[in-house]
């Protein structure tokens, strides 16, 4: 009995921590949606692009770890700059579905560029954090929890707190919130829309880089990251598109539910149900609470 309970705890905690990885991807999504009401479908591609660039800098040019990270972050700022200038600004007055489709195109461009520049083979990314159970926890609590999972959880927590403080207490955050509320009114009182957009896209790029490092250390830096990042979409639906805590809670729910289902129900169906379980869960949420747990109620004007 105790062992079963321990096993369940292990599955649950593992799922929750793995869920923070989805949260990290979803976070970039929320940042952009909050500031510009744009569904950035290319967030997954940004994850892939940034971490492949990071690996490329480190492995092809032998640039040290920290410098490579900074370079990759700068590259994401450049991507944000180009996106703002060449995609978002011309589509300022387009409908949200049009912008969404343009970001699908942007995702394709980023994936293609990354592969053209750094090749298609799977790269190993070593962060110096092993993906194996932490001995101390295994000995004392009898739970096998990977060090990488714990790191991902910590990194996610730090980023959330940082972003929360940024949004709540700084002038930039105030500007961001103003733009999110009403872009037209915000620009009429002198908030530079261009800079805000650039800032948000760069921040989303850096978040993508961090998420990519976590994913890359676990599964290798490869194209499949884009598909994994798609799972951020059900996370967003559960948490709400415009809520940072929502992204976290949504990620935790998805991570926990898919692991528990996979371990306890999966074997009856030949496994691999975690491929679709998050999406079906998202459908149930859509039917009962379309705005997500923390989202604002969707009001459409006729």
């Amino acid at each position: 009995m105790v062992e079963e309970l321990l096993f369940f705890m292990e599955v649950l905690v593992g799922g929750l921590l793995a869920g923070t990885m989805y949260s990290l991807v979803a976070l970039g999504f929320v940042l952009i949606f909050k500031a510009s009401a744009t569904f950035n479908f290319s967030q997954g591609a940004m994850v892939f692009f940034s971490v492949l660039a990071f690996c490329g800098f480190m492995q092809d040019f032998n640039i040290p770890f920290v410098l490579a990270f900074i370079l990759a972050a700068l590259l994401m700022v450049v991507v944000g700059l180009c996106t703002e200038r060449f995609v978002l600004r011309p589509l300022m007055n387009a409908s949200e579905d049009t912008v969404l489709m343009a970001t699908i195109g942007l995702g394709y461009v980023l994936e293609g560029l990354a592969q053209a520049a750094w090749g298609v083979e799977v790269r190993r990314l070593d962060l110096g954090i092993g993906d194996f159970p932490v001995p101390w926890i295994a000995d004392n609590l009898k739970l096998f929890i990977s060090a990488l999972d714990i790191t991902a959880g910590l990194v996610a927590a730090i980023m959330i707190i940082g972003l929360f403080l940024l949004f709540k207490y700084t002038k930039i955050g105030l500007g961001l919130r103003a733009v999110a509320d009403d872009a037209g009114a915000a620009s009429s009182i002198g908030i530079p829309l261009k800079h805000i957009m650039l800032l948000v896209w760069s921040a989303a790029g850096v978040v993508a880089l961090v998420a990519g490092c976590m994913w890359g250390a676990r599964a290798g830096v490869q194209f499949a990251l884009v598909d994994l990042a798609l799972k951020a979409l059900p996370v967003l639906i559960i948490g709400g598109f415009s809520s940072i805590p929502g992204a976290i809670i949504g990620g935790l729910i998805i991570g926990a539910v898919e692991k528990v289902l996979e371990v306890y129900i999966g074997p009856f169906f030949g496994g691999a149900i975690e491929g679709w379980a998050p999406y079906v869960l998202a459908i149930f949420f859509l039917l009962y609470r379309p705005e997500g747990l923390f989202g604002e109620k969707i009001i459409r004007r006729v």
Partner: protein
Amino acid sequence: MMKPVFMTYTKKDLINLAVCMVLSVLVIPTFITTEYWYTSILIPWLCLALATIGQQIVMGYTGQLALGAAGFMAAGAFAMFNLILRVPDLGFVGSLIVSGLIAAAFGILFGLPSLKVRGIYLMVATLASQFFIIWMIDKFGWFKNYDSSGIITAQDIVILGKPFTTPLAMYFVCLAVTTVLTLLAMNMARGSTGRNWMAVRDMDIAAESMGVSLLRTKVQAFAISAFYCGVAGALFAFCYLKSLEPVAFDIKLSFKILFMCILGGLGTINGAFIGAAFILLFPVLLNAIGNNVFHGAIDATIISSIEQVIFGGLMIIFMIYEPLGMAKLWENIKQKWKTKIPSSTNLKSFGKKT
């Protein structure tokens, strides 16, 4: 309940149809003799164009952002395999129709969330269908007739006792199915069915207040769309791939069909054909350039990456400058041509009911 209205064809339509038929039935088989063109370009073009029409119906005409065309194609393809295997009396055409209907049932099931949500929310809901259908086929051996290798060879096409196994014969099978379904789609799009779809697309609340049933219209659009995708998937597997494996119908194919639909032109039937042709032929062209101009100096993976960049770039450019895609571009060119040279036929038809 309104009775569906069918439109009569105008003279222009009949001329267009005649030209297309002459081109596809007489000109192409006489002038194209290499098998490569049939097996690698014409057959997949027709199949994917058919699937793109399905995507058009739900996305272009009804305005519902769906991203699961490949899932329905897989449902159609595997339904076809099982029908031919287990119900041989049905024949090829019968199996094709029934497999389309099975795909349509999935379409109804996964289209139901569209009643509640729209935009990216719906996209996520339709992604569920994509992943779920592929997983189901993959995990339940019955669908694959307990074949352990994972790749099943498709049965030969036999219609009325005659085998259709040469590339040319398969081309004609695809052509016949595509022609019938395209005409049907055009008619639906122009008739009351399509009017309802477009009313829902343009403003669902206004449409509802005018007596268009949202439930009926949306579910109908999803069902018909999935039917088209299912038939297309069956043809795709039996005439083009000649094998069945769930991996062939992954999310990448769904994205490809989405691109065909958007680049070709949302809300147009001919856009489906233009878009499918473009997405299929462009990589062929790029590879030809890579091989002939640079003599293979550029790696094939780089070429495919460049192709991806160009598709994505085009998507952005079209969204900015011409959200209605290549079909609209073509329309604009025709319009310019007409205003430059005002022909007498143009003046005569002025004021006439068309």
